[in-house]
C-alpha cells in the first residue's frame, strides 16, 4: 500500500511536470527527432541489423509517424525498452510513443495512464508441442509442463485458460524468448506458449520445424498497438490517424508505387482528402497538409509493411488472418477521413 502511494506520488509529479511543459508535438518538432520506444529485439517486429539500422513491423510505424510529423522517416531515435521498463519510459517522457507489441488492456489504459492509439496487429496466444507427443489440441495439455515468459500477459492468460477448462499444468518460468526456445528444445517442458506470431517465427528457425506443431487453439486476445501518454490528446490523435492512414491507404489501393500519381488528384474524394489534395485534415491536428503522403511513402501502406516485414513471403510467414482488411474478412478498419 505504502509503495503504491509512493509511486502514485511520483506518477503525479511526473504528470504535472508533463503538463507544465510544451505539448509532445511541439517537443518533437523542436527536437527534430521522434523518440520511439521499441522492443529490444523481436523477430519481424523490431530488429537492428549489423550496422545498427532498425527495421520491422513496429519500427515501420515509428518511421511513418516521424515522416508525418517531421517530414523525414529517418528522424527517429529508437529507444530499446524491456518488458519492465517500457511503460515507465513512456510516462516519464523518455519516449514520445511506444511501438512495442504491447497488449491493449483495461488496466494499462486506465491505471497506468496510457492511451492506446489503435491496434496494428491482432495477435493471440498459442501453444507449440513436439509432434511425437501426439497432442493435437490444447485441451489435451492437462498435467503438462509449459514454458512461459514471466512478467507478461501470456502468463495470466495461461492460468485463466487452464482454470477455465479445469486442467492443471506445471509452469516452467523463463526470462526471454531465446531461453524459452532452448528450454523447450532441451525437453524441459512439454509445450511452449507465447504469442502466435512469435511461435511461428520460433518454429521457422528450428533445425527441424516439421517435428513441431502449433496447436489450433488461440487462448487469448492480444491486440498489439502503439501507446502514448494519457493527457496529450493532440499527440494521441496524430499517432492514431497516422496508423489509420496506413490502413486506409491499403483499403483504397494507395501504395508507395502509385502515391505520387494519386497525390496530384484523383476521382475519389476520400483519397483526395487523405492525401491532402482536398480539405484541411492535416492542419486540424497541427500537421502539414501532405502529412499522410509522407507517412505512406515512409514504408508503404499497411499491407505493404506487413508483406515486407512479417508476411507470407518472409521467412516468418505470417498469414494476414485477423489482420486483413475488413473487406477481406479481417479486423483492420479505418474510420472515414472527413
Amino acid at each position, binding site marked *: 500500500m505504502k509503495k503504491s502511494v509512493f509511486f502514485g506520488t511520483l506518477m503525479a509529479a511526473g504528470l504535472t511536470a508533463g503538463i507544465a511543459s510544451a505539448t509532445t508535438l511541439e517537443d518533437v518538432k523542436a527536437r527534430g527527432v521522434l523518440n520511439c520506444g521499441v522492443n529490444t529485439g523481436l523477430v519481424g517486429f523490431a530488429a*537492428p541489423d*549489423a550496422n545498427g539500422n532498425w527495421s520491422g513491423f513496429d519500427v515501420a510505424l515509428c518511421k511513418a509517424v516521424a515522416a508525418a510529423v517531421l517530414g523525414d522517416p529517418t528522424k527517429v531515435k529508437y529507444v530499446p525498452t524491456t518488458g519492465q521498463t517500457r511503460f515507465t519510459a513512456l510516462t516519464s517522457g523518455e519516449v514520445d510513443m511506444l511501438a512495442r507489441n504491447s497488449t491493449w488492456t483495461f488496466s494499462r489504459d486506465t491505471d497506468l495512464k496510457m492511451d492506446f492509439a489503435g491496434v496494428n496487429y491482432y495477435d493471440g496466444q498459442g501453444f507449440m508441442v513436439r509432434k511425437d507427443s501426439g497432442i493435437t489440441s490444447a485441451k489435451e495439455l492437462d498435467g503438462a509442463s509449459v514454458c512461459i515468459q514471466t512478467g507478461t500477459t501470456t502468463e495470466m492468460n495461461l492460468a485463466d485458460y487452464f482454470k477455465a477448462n479445469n486442467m492443471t499444468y506445471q509452469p516452467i518460468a523463463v526470462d526471454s524468448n531465446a531461453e524459452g526456445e532452448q528450454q523447450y528444445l532441451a525437453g524441459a517442458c512439454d509445450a511452449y506458449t507465447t504469442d502466435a506470431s512469435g511461435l511461428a517465427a520460433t518454429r521457422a528457425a528450428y533445425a527441424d520445424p516439421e517435428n513441431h506443431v502449433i496447436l489450433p487453439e488461440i487462448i487469448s486476445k492480444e491486440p498489439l498497438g502503439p501507446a502514448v501518454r494519457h493527457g496529450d490528446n493532440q499527440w494521441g490523435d496524430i499517432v492514431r490517424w497516422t496508423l489509420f492512414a496506413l490502413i486506409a491507404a491499403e483499403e483504397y489501393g494507395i501504395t508507395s508505387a502509385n502515391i505520387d500519381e494519386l497525390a496530384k488528384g484523383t476521382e475519389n474524394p476520400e483519397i483526395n482528402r487523405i492525401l491532402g489534395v482536398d480539405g484541411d485534415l492535416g492542419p486540424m491536428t497541427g500537421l502539414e497538409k501532405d502529412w499522410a503522403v509522407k507517412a505512406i511513402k515512409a514504408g508503404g501502406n499497411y499491407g505493404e509493411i506487413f508483406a515486407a516485414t512479417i508476411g507470407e513471403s518472409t521467412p516468418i510467414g505470417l498469414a494476414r488472418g485477423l489482420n486483413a482488411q475488413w473487406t477481406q474478412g479481417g479486423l483492420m478498419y479505418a474510420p472515414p477521413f472527413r
Partner: protein
Amino acid sequence: MSDTSHSAVFVRKTMLPPEPAPARQTGVSKWVRENLFSGWLNTILTLAGIALIWGLASHFYPWFRHGVWNAASLPECRQIIAARWGEGATGACWAVIHARWTQFIFGFYPPELFWRPVLTFGLMLVAVAPVLFTQLPRGMLKVSAVFPLLAIWLLWGGSIWPVVMIAAGFAVGYLVARILARWGMILAILGAVVAAVLFWIFVPGPVDAVLGRVLPIALEPVASRQFGGFLLAITLGAGGIAMSLPLGILLALGRQSDMFLIKTFSIMFIEFIRGVPLITLLFVASLLLNYFLPPGTNFDIILRVMILVTLFSAAYIAEVIRGGLAALPRGQYEAADALGLDYWKAQRLVILPQALKISIPGIVSTFISMFKDTTLVTFVGLFEPLKSIPDSIRADIAWKGTYWEHFIFVGAIFFILNFSMSRYSMYLERKLKRDHR
C-alpha cells in the same frame, strides 16, 4: 709394510657412476602415483574424474569441431554442417560472431567512427601502464592525468571546449588549494571545491560559445544510446573502477574518523548502498530520476548508471579497506603520531600503504565483480554484451536460433579481461611483499 688391523681384499679406487633413480620414483610415473593413485579412494576418484571429463569432451567436442565460420545465416550454417558431416550432425554456428562481432564490441556506435573507441582503448593502455607498473618512466603519468577527459571527448564527441572547461575547473581548484594550503588542509579542500564548482557554474556557458566560434574544434557527437557491447562494459567498468577506489578510501577513512558527522554519514552511506540490490539502484538511475528532474533535462544515461555503479562498488571497497585498516597493528598508528605527522601525512605515508597492500585481493575481487555486474544494465535498456546484444542479433531472422555461440564468445572475452586483472593483483602482491624473504 703398513700396519693395518685387517686387510681389504678389494678396495674401490674410482667412484661408481650414479645409477638413475628407480623408474617408480621419478618423473611422470612418480607424480601420477603420488598424486592420482595414492590409495584406493583416490584411485576411484581419479577414474571417476577421467570418465566425467571424457563424457563432457566427447559430448561437446563434435559441436566445436563441426563449427562453421563463414555463412550468411543459421540455415546456411546447418546446410554446410549437414553437407560436411552428414545429416543429423550438429555444430556451432560461429558465423554469427563473424558477421556481428562489431556489434559485440561497439554496439551501435557509428561504423565510420570505430577508430575513436579503438584509439581510446589504446590510450587507456598507455595511461594505465605507469599506474600499474612502477618501473615505467614517471613522466607517463601525465598521460594518465589527461586521459579521462580525453577519453570523454573521443568517445562522445562534440566540441572540445566543454571538456577543456572541466579541466580548467580542476586547475582553478588546484590553484586555490595551493594558496589556501598554508592555513590548513580542511580549508584548502573546501576552498578548492567551492572555487571549482563556482567556476563550472558561471564560466563555461559564455566562454564555450565564444571559443566554439573562434576555434571550432569538434568531433561528430555520438549519443549514449549508441554505445553497446564491450565498449559499454569497459567504459562503465573502467570509469567505475577509477572513481570508486578513491571514493572507497575516503569512505573507509570516514568510517574510522572521530568526527561524528563524517562517521555517521559514512556509515549510513555504506550500509544503505550495501543493503540495496544493484538492480534497484540501476532502476533508480534510469527511471526514478526522470520523475524528479525537471522535464527536458538531459542527464546522460551512461553517466547516471556509471555514478550509481561507482557508488555501489565504493561502498564495498570501503569495507574491504576498513578490513585492511583494522588489520594494522596499533603500533603503526602510534608510531606515526610519535613522528609528529599530522592526520593526512600519517595516513598517506604510514597507514594507507600498508592497509591497501593487505586489501589488494579484496579490492581486485570487488573490481572484477563490478566489471561483471555491468551486464546488469540490460535491465535499463542499455546494450550490454551478454544478453541485450545477443537478443537483438537473434531478432534478425537469419540468426534466430543461435544461442550458445553468443554466451561462449562473450564469456571468453570476459574471462580474458578478468583473468588479467586477477593475475595482475597476484603480481602486485608478490612485488609488495616485505616479509619472509
